């Protein structure tokens, strides 16, 4: 009788230990999602210059609506002198709708003596590659998840970009390299990840 009791206590203890271990293992996963950082890195090795900026998206989301100056109000940028639905004869919304529903593909390729431009969609991301041959072989790569493009254009108005909504969408997106610009001397990178350093 006593041995049975001891055995039960041992089993209960083993269960408790197992449960404690599982909770300990699961705790980091159950914890609040890691803070997301927007990083900007500008480097000019020729001049030995560099600028590094690290801002949490949460902080940017808080600050942005507080800035009400010129074309930026309540986290939205007003594009003046341009009706976005009819920008230079291009229906941007229709174009984005088409891009959203289209399968991964290369949509635009322009090659001339001054520049190469390529617009494509891959893995749900909008990708733009520009090579400016005139400006010392400057290369611009932009990769924006479609979710962020949608958030940018989520305002009902035709002449507004919702930057605050885009920041919120970025918080929900994974680690993403947004922009790289490379010319003969300078290199610029803008990306989002969960690390508070650029190392």
């Amino acid at each position, binding site marked *: 009788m006593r041995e049975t009791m001891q055995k039960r206590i041992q089993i209960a203890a083993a269960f408790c230990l197992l449960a404690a271990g599982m909770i300990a293992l699961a705790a980091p996963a159950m914890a609040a999602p890691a803070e997301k950082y927007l990083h900007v890195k500008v480097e000019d090795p020729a001049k*030995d*210059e560099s600028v*590094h900026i690290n801002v*949490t998206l949460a*902080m940017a989301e808080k600050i942005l609506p507080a800035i009400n100056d010129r074309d930026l109000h309540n986290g939205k940028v007003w594009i003046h002198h341009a009706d976005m639905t009819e920008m230079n004869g291009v229906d941007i919304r229709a174009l984005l709708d088409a891009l959203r529903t289209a399968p991964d593909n290369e949509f635009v390729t322009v090659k001339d003596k001054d520049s190469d431009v390529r617009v494509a969609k891959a893995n749900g991301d909008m990708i733009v590659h520009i090579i400016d041959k005139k400006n010392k072989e400057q290369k611009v790569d932009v990769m924006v998840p479609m979710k962020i493009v949608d958030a940018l254009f989520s305002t009902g108005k035709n002449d507004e970009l919702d930057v605050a909504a885009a920041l919120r969408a970025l918080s929900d997106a994974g680690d993403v390299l947004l922009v790289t610009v490379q010319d003969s001397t300078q290199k610029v990178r803008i990306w989002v990840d969960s690390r508070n350093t650029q190392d």
Partner: protein
Amino acid sequence: MILLGKIALGMASVGLAGAGVLCSEGVVHVKVIEKEPQGIHINLVAPALLAPIAMHLAPRRELAQAAGRIEPYVPVIRAALEGLRETDDVTLVEVKEPGEHAKISKLGGSIIVDVDDEGETVHVSAPIRAISSTVEQLAAAASNPLYCQPTTPDPQ
């Protein structure tokens, strides 16, 4: 003799408690070193709790001027400080140029600014709470008619 000891202990306790209260908000540290042979060396460490108190002692005209300048940016500063308070320790901005290095970071509830160039080295650290309360006082001064009264012009 025992009575004297008790008085001394009491005074020491009051002193310690006072120092504790004064430093409860952290400290403001300003260090400026000019890299010249006769350059100035400033090393100031002051309890952050004194910053809002010092605001009350500042001349009204200067305070009104500062309040007027800062007023348009108060909502942004307020939002930034609120965001910074909730942020983990991070280097916000770092700029490196030949002979110059500047860094703004958040470390343990304080904002730290370090500038090191050919002429001088500057280090400023201030607790975010102290910056917040100082900004709020400046904002209050901006909306207080007492501070906004035009000063009488000098007859000469």
